[in-house]
Structures are given as structure tokens and as C-alpha cells.
């Protein structure tokens, strides 16, 4: 299958290793990955902050970039960006009175998948240890991000994939379905409330004794990881794609320069 990678702006700029891990996983399964070079951002930050006029060219750019190449499906390692592409793009185009863009956005949205959705529903991966050779001998807990959980109905896809990784120990996170408090510009506009939510999330994560909290959205993980780092916690965050990409021969290095925190007790 020819798969177009939508890296998302935050992964592209801040967490390139997450995108590299995504490529690794897909190539290991024998698929061809392409990177449509016109891509930038899904426009979610603009839309969610109410800047619809500013969002329109961003959305138009995404649609255009993902129309430029021929491919079977597009994938992003982010539930919220995929939710934006699928649900918000058509609504925004309609609101701005651009019916043609709406139809094009719907077509791109229909071909776009979140990583675990693609792996489980399309590529039939149910056992990462066996099918991907994933190996990650650490104690991990998992936070399901809101948009993946509620807008995309990902269910336990990410968690089940994590549990099937060789050598891993997955600890249940108390109150897992509670929002971590990120919410894009919410964390700036209502910083106090956001911090209070983060505090509870961090407490729950630490109560599991895991050295890492995994998830499927780089932005939530940056927020959670940033909070853990500020309190000098031994726990840090890591995207589930990187855990799936980790093998015995090529273990993921979790002490890389862009990680917040010391990288846990490893």
C-alpha cells in the first residue's frame, strides 16, 4: 500500500522521532511511505481558537497538499489532528461558504486515518510483538487523548497495541478518560484551570509507578511531560508509535535531547 504521512506541525517541528517511528512501523510492514511536501498543519489551533478566517488558508493548504500525490491512505500519529481533518475541515469550509473546498476536504478526510486506526482496522495488526517485532522492556501507563477517544472512537486500539509489545508492562491509569487539561490555547487562556487538571493527571500517572506515560497525541504528551518535568518527576512521556517502533535490535532511545525530563528510571 502507498501511504501518505501527515506528520502534523508539532511532530514535524518538535518530535521528529515520532514521525520517524511511524515511517519505520509502516515500512516494516512492507508499505511504501510518501511525505507530501506541501503539508504544514491541520489548522486545529486556529479553528479551536475561533480564528476562522486565518484557518481557511491553512485548511486549504492541507487539502491541496494531500491531493497533490497519488496514494491509498493518509496517516497521522495524532488523534486530534485526524479528528480535525475529518470533522472540522468540512464544517469550516461550509462556514466560510466554500462548497467546493468542503467536498474536497471530505474526500481527503475519508482517506485519512489515525495511526492505530490504520494499523488495526486497515493493516490488520493486532499483535505488535509478533507482527512488528516491537520490544520495549519498561513499565508503561497510557493516557487516551480526548479527541482520539471521543471524536474518532478509537476505543482501546492504542492500548491494545501497546499491551501486545514484547517485554512491556502496562499499568492501568486511574481516571484515564479524564482530560489532561491541554486543550490547545485553553492552556494559555485558562492556564490556572488547565494546570489544576494537569496536576490531577500527573498524580494519577505517578500513582502507577510507571516510568513512562504513553499516548497518541504529541501535544497532550508535551503538556503532561512538561508538567512532570516541572515537578522533577522520574516519569516522562513517550508517543506509542515510538514504543511500537522499538525492537530488540534497535531499542528506542528514550533519553534523546527533545525529551522532557530525565527519562525515568531506566
Amino acid at each position, binding site marked *: 500500500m502507498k501511504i501518505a504521512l501527515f506528520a502534523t*506541525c508539532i511532530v*514535524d*517541528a*518538535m*518530535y*521528529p*522521532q515520532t514521525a*520517524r517511528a511511524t515511517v519505520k512501523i509502516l515500512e516494516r510492514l512492507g508499505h511504501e511511505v510518501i*511525505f*507530501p*511536501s*506541501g*503539508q*504544514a*498543519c491541520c489548522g486545529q489551533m*486556529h*479553528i*479551536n*481558537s*475561533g*480564528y*476562522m*478566517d*486565518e*484557518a481557511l488558508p*491553512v485548511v*486549504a*493548504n492541507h487539502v491541496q497538499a494531500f491531493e497533490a500525490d497519488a496514494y491509498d491512505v493518509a496517516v497521522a500519529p495524532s488523534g486530534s489532528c485526524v479528528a480535525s481533518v475529518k470533522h*472540522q475541515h468540512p*464544517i469550516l469550509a461550509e*462556514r466560510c461558504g466554500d462548497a467546493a473546498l468542503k467536498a474536497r476536504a471530505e474526500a481527503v478526510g475519508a482517506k485519512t486515518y489515525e495511526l492505530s486506526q490504520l494499523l488495526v482496522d486497515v493493516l490488520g495488526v493486532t499483535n505488535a510483538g509478533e507482527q512488528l517485532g516491537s520490544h520495549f522492556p519498561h513499565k508503561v501507563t497510557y493516557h487516551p487523548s*480526548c479527541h482520539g477517544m*471521543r471524536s474518532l472512537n478509537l476505543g482501546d486500539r492504542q492500548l491494545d497495541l501497546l499491551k501486545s509489545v514484547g517485554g512491556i508492562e502496562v499499568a492501568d491509569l486511574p481516571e484515564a478518560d479524564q*482530560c489532561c*487539561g491541554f*486543550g*490547545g*490555547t*485553553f*492552556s494559555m*487562556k*485558562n*492556564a*490556572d*484551570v*488547565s*494546570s*489544576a*487538571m*494537569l496536576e490531577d493527571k500527573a498524580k494519577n500517572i505517578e500513582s502507577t509507578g510507571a516510568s513512562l506515560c504513553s499516548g497518541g497525541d504529541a501535544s497532550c504528551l*508535551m*503538556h503532561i511531560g*512538561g*508538567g512532570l*518535568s*516541572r515537578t522533577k518527576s522520574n516519569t516522562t512521556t513517550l508517543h506509542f508509535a515510538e514504543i511500537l517502533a522499538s525492537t530488540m535490535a534497535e531499542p528506542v532511545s528514550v533519553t534523546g*535531547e*527533545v*525529551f*522532557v525530563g530525565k527519562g525515568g528510571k531506566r
Partner: protein
Amino acid sequence: MSGVFMGMPSLPVFGDGNLHIDEPFPAAAHRELGNTQMRANLRHATHTIRDKRIKVVGELPDWEELRDAGAATKNQVMANLPALLEEFEKNFTARGGIIHWARDADEANRIVSDLIKEQDTTEVVKVKSMATQEIGLNEYLEEQGISAFETDLAELIVQLGHDKPSHILVPAIHKNRTEVRDIFLAEMPNVDPNLTDEPRLLAMAAREHLRRKFLSAKVAVSGANFALADSGTLAVVESEGNGRMCLTLPETLITVMGIEKLLPAKEDLEVFMQLLPRSSTGERMNPYTSLWTGVTEGDGPQNVHLVMLDNGRTAALADKYGRTALNCIRCSACMNVCPVYERTGGHAYGSTYPGPIGAILSPLLTGIKSEENSSLPYASSLCGACFDACPVKINIPEILVHLRGEDVDSRRGEKKLPSQMDLMMKGAQWAFSSGKNLGLLEKGLPLGKLAAGQDKKIKRLPGIAAGWTQSRDIPAPPSQSFRDWWKKEHQSEATTMKQEK
């Protein structure tokens, strides 16, 4: 009859009364977050109701279908509101009821107060009602020398405590029982001075106090949960029985109801009587459901009035993307699951309607331009828990985003100096509207390291981003973006291929 409904007014009239907030949400939230007792009470209470709701909702195999049916009925009501209102008016009037139409809070207050004065009394008993809170009826009546006694236990606690409700269903949710006992001891006439905080004893004290009021009041004021167009029937759903006392004992009954509360026919109650109690209190059924249709000679109130309240509802109805907010049946499920509400409590929302529904309903009713109300649509992380819980499937996150758009557009229209946020969004628009631009910007990533400390973390950001770094670090950016890495990888591939040729 004081007027005839003429269909939708050509210009939407926005609502007033207790819908306007006077402090922006972030400031109010900051203050409320400091109240640790309130936060603990609230966390305990909301989590208990949450668990109960999930349990009883799980018992129904057709819960999703019920939600769909509820949403469909309400959408149908909103699409045919003028015709349904006329049908209701005809049937209500034919049964001896009298209808009054009120455009806004002020008109509604005057109508109710005049009706009470006609009965030559200065005391009324009240059934808990959001509509009368919205218009500030109790305060208005007080100015007119009329005392209104709340008879719902929680509402009574709030009233005696000179406090404001913080939840639409459990107005005293922010108080624990020791606090309740202290309020009773200080404010309730003839209370046993040895009263303890045992819930049973507290309830008995309230009961005795209220019984005296029920038996002496000539006039009762209520709200309504539903109005059935096909028969002109009104319905109140409650759990204590105080409502039924008010609805049956006094001579005069005045109901104040938002015009959106209509249901086409009595069969529709079947769906809503399942959706409402399970969503609100986590009960299979509420203990008391009272239905009344006009006047029955020799039985119950002989003067039956209904004030139909607009107060911004037609304006909300005119908003294509926001109108489903009027489908709300005030069950409070959304606030019980909201992580923001759980931490700030209802007072932070500064309006009669707190929580997720308040964050959309208040600005819809008052217009987004009104004062501080424009800060309400931002009081959410858009986590979507409210949408999941809502029995009539109101897509609250989508309406929040829509209203944020309205707010930004309205400020844009006023041509104010651009805020920091405006400038940031403009800059991001440039970066995000082409792969080339973003690529260029990413070339500067290594510079980000300068802002980071030795531990490769950024600990303080300026301006509007400062809030982020109050409790979080930001990692120093990588030396190379994914885009650059990809280009290099694939360029070298291309070069190798060329060399091999």
C-alpha cells in the same frame, strides 16, 4: 391574554437578567480554584453522580436510540416552534389557563409581580425553577415587598445562606452537610438549637419549616420541565414532593417557562421521562411527576397563569450553528462530567447556567458581544465529555468553537488593536499555510536551544504563553525537523541511485 405570539421577531432580542457575567471567566476561575473546601465537595459530589448515571444508563440497551429520539423530537420542536406555540396556547387557554408573553426578563418579572399583587398577598412559595432564576424574579419581588420562599431543599439552603446556586440541579452542591447545619442554625426560624449534621435531621428541620409556608401561601410560582402542545399540559419533574405541594395547595399558580420547553404530544414524554432522571440524578425514575392542564373546578389552583419567556431564545434560534443549545432539558449531566466545572464550580461561570451548557447558552441568549460573556466559550478544553453525556446529543464542543469564531469575528469587526493572540494567530497562519513556509521557520529550530537551560528545557515564555510555563516546561526543540530529515534521507537515496546508474 396579554398578547398574541406573532412568530419570530424580525430583529433578535437578546436576553437580560442573570445571564450576564460581570467578571471574565479566567479571573473568576482563578478565585474559585483557591477554594479547596468547595473543590473537595464538588469533586466528591460530581463523581458520585457520574458513577450512578453511568450505571443506570448502562441498564438500558436502547440508550443511544433514546438519545437519538430525544434529539430528533427537540430538533422538530425548534423547526416548528411558532406553530407549536400557537397550538399550545389554544389548548392551554381552552382549559381555563391564561397565557402571558414576555419578551425579556424585565417584562416577565413585571407580569409575575402584578399577578401576585392582584391576589393581595406579600408571600409566595416557589418550586425550583431555572427560568425564574434567569430573570432574577426573587430579587425583583423583594424590591416590590414580596417575599418568595424557595421550597426545594437545596434551593432553600442557598436562599437561607444568602448564597448563589452553583449547579442547576443541585444548587448547593458546593456545600457539605456541616455547612448546611450551620446555615440552618443561623438562619432558620424556630430551629432546634441542638440540630446535628445528620442528613435525616436536617431534612426534618427543613420539612417543618416548609410545611408552615405551604399551608399559608395563597400563590405559588413554578417553572416547567415540559409543555405538551397537543393538550396544553404542563409538567414538573422533581424528587422531594415540595413541588407537588406548591402546584396543588395554593389558589393561584403562576408558571414561568422558556418558550423552548415545548414537546409536540404527550407520547413524547415517554422518551424524555427516561432520559431526564437517568441523566440528572442517576435514578431510573424521578419520585414525583406532576402534570396539570388548566383549571379543574373545586380542585387545585383556580387561577392558572403561564408566562412564556423569550429572553434571547428567538435570537439563539436564529443562530444556525448554535440553535441546538435550545434542545437542553437542564439535566445537568454535562456539568457533572466536565473537568473544568469540577475544579471551578458553578460560581465561576457567573450566570444562571454554569458548566458546559452555560458556556454556550449564556452567550447565545445575550449575544456574544455582551460584556464578559464572550469569555465563556473559551472555558473548556474541548474534551467532549459533555457531548458524550448529553441525553439530547447537543454537540457542545462544536458550538463552543462556533461561538469562539463569532467572538473573534465581532472583535475583528470593531477594528480594535490586534491582541497578542491575534498577532500569534496571524504569524501561525503564515507558517501553517504552506509547507515551504513551515520548512523555513523550522530552519530556526536550533535557535530554540538558546532559550533553553542546561537541562534542555524552556522554563519561561513571555506574554500570553507565560501561563503555559507557570506549571510546565517545554522541551528544547530538536536540531532538525522531520521534514529536513526526510529530505536528506530521500535526497541521499536519489544520489545513490544516480551513482549506481
